[in-house]
């Protein structure tokens, strides 16, 4: 895949679409921008530890529109949390599946559903926000997504509305041969004093090579509160690029929890602009890798105005010869006095062949601020391991318990029981259900 082949692909894609004029203009701008930027190389700060050679080498095709086959339905049923049984939006290869979705009942003026439907019915309302937040213009993959997305979830909350139920957005990639790419787009507009809790789940059905390039934009008006969970559990043969762009108004609170456990190579970035006074963001993350996986986690927080607060805790567990990256940047603008920012990153290595690059960056241009960061990469504590064994626990169960204990600090932050249970079970399955022996073979 080259920028040129993407442009050619775009011409075929665009030629077949009937779209509101504003949208096609956006797309054309985006593909031009992408063609200018090209695929990111490791010379770029943000991509220093993640090489895209394996991704670029593939000639990914746009996925054809697919039906909700029984296997797809089963997969959806497996990943939908009980808390979202009456409020989930499902997409197959980036296309809305009415059949598999159950939309919640919402108040007047509010909307939860397909972005494409909203674009056809009320393009002005959507285009007022789409592509406007964060650093969409500077990021090649976000530009690529803007050029190609077919659909995704659109959540609109008018001032003062609260979504009672958790809304789960499920993006299923079929990963059929010869290798397909899907580019789902999520837009969340939370107007003044509105409230919502959302989960984005990314899963793959097949085992072929696939590329998911997902973009989520979240706007929080004054006093709004959004809790956003993101669970990436795609198949280990695929590639995943996920970018979340958040813009926060005054007194708004944004809380994010990112779980990355799938894909052979993945990069998940969360970019938050604390755009008005007294806005606050809390970013939690958990990355679990084994075998030859590479999981890159990036956070970017811009404290643009005074009295803004951010809290970050990212933890990772790596086994086999997997690698991971934590790249966390905090910028405190000159104007942003009384900023309060804290960033922590801890990675646990279960194997001596696994490694993690951690790169906390603070750029502070204001003088009256409270900022701190810390990063640690280490193995299981030998003394703790001996302590557990001295009580009769075997090596595997002692390691398992300590590993779970390490993750608990972040898992305990999940307020959705279904997701909490799912993350705990992913963790055990990945590292302690014969998993170690299994990828031991893969490693040779």
């Amino acid at each position, binding site marked *: 895949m080259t920028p040129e082949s993407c442009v050619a692909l775009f011409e075929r894609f665009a030629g077949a679409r009937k779209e509101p004029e504003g949208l096609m203009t956006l797309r054309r701008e985006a593909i031009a921008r992408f063609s200018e930027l090209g695929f990111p190389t490791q010379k770029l700060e943000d991509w220093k530890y993640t090489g895209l050679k394996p991704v670029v080498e593939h000639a990914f095709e746009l996925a054809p529109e697919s039906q909700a086959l029984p296997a797809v339905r089963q997969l959806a049923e497996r990943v939908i949390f009980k808390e979202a049984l009456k409020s989930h939006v499902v997409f197959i290869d980036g296309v809305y599946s009415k059949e598999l979705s159950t939309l919640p009942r919402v108040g007047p003026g509010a909307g939860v559903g397909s972005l494409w439907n909203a674009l056809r019915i009320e393009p002005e309302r959507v285009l007022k926000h789409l592509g406007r937040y964060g650093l969409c213009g500077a990021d090649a993959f976000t530009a690529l997504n803007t050029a190609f997305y077919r659909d995704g979830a659109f959540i609109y909350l008018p001032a003062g509305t609260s979504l009672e139920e958790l809304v789960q957005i499920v993006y299923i990639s079929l990963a059929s041969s010869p290798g397909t790419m899907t580019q789902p787009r999520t837009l969340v507009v939370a107007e003044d004093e509105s409230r919502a809790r959302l989960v984005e789940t990314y899963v793959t059905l097949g085992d072929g090579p696939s590329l998911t390039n997902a973009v989520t934009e979240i706007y929080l008006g004054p006093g709004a509160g959004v809790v956003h969970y993101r669970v990436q559990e795609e198949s280990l043969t695929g590639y995943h690029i996920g970018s979340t762009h958040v813009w926060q108004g005054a007194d708004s609170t944004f809380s994010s929890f990112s779980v990355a456990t799938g894909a052979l190579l993945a990069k998940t970035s969360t970019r938050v602009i604390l755009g008005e006074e007294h806005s606050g963001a809390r970013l939690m993350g958990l990355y679990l890798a084994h075998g030859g996986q590479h999981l890159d986690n990036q956070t970017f927080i811009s404290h643009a105005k005074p009295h803004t607060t951010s809290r970050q805790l990212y933890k990772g567990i790596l086994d086999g010869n997997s690698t991971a990256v934590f790249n966390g940047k905090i910028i405190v603008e000159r104007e942003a006095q009384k900023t309060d920012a804290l960033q922590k990153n801890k990675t646990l290595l279960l194997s001596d062949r696994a490694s993690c690059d951690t790169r906390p960056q603070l750029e502070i241009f204001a003088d009256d601020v409270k900022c701190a960061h810390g990063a640690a990469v280490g193995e299981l*504590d*030998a*003394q*703790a391991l*001996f*302590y*557990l*064994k*001295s*009580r*009769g*626990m*075997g*090596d595997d*169960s*002692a390691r398992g*318990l*300590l590993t*779970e*204990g*390490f*993750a*608990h*600090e972040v898992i305990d932050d999940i307020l959705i029981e279904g997701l909490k249970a799912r993350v705990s079970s992913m963790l055990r399955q990945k590292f302690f259900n014969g998993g170690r022996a299994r990828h031991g073979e893969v490693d040779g």
Partner: protein
Amino acid sequence: MLDIRDLHVRVGGAEILKGIDLKIGAGEVHAIMGPNGSGKSTLTQVLAGNPQYEVTRGEVLYEGKELLKMEPENRAREGVFLAFQYPVEIPGVNNAYFLKAALNEIRAHRGKPPLDAMEFLELLREKLKLVGMDEGFKNRPVNQGFSGGEKKRNEMLQLAVLEPKLAILDETDSGLDIDALKAVAQGVNAMRSPQRAMLIVTHYQRLLNYITPDRVHVLAEGRIALTGGPKLAHELEAKGYDWVRKQALAGRALAGKEKT
């Protein structure tokens, strides 16, 4: 039950234990005293199987089996328990969950069915009462944020739940106020039985005011310098450890005679 023969141990290149001989029979309570740095803690860690310690000579028979060849977890499953001088804090791991997992692994080793959640909770409540601990401790992370006294009580709780055959207490009395000390002693005394042996390591004699040992050994310079009855502890309190060192230098024969 326990037979230590000519045990030599190195830690980080330095020889700490230089030939320990010690026999403990079922039902007996032995105390090991000695100045700081004499090797008391090293002895307990080696018996529990801490891989950081290197045994260079000697052997340890536990119920006729070679203890030093067993993995730490198998020692525990066979009934060896060490109450740590410095219990390890384990963030994120629930105290009760950990103890249940440990107990059920020990039970599995002994061919017993696992206790279910209700059965375990009942057992835990009973043992919490025995060692004078609040029920709230069961749901806290293992030792994290516990005071010194609470950590020691938590060790006693584990001892009471796991019911070992050989209990080794490494300075369980250090850093305790008098109430906590009494609670620990009460726990130990309640655990005394003809089937169980105990080895109590302590720097001060005060714990032995509440627990009367069958034998008292004094460790100095990596060897057992002196062995005697319960009165020896009081004598040490009065005369200090320098006295033992002099005794040890004057005649190792004394210790040799007392040991047999």
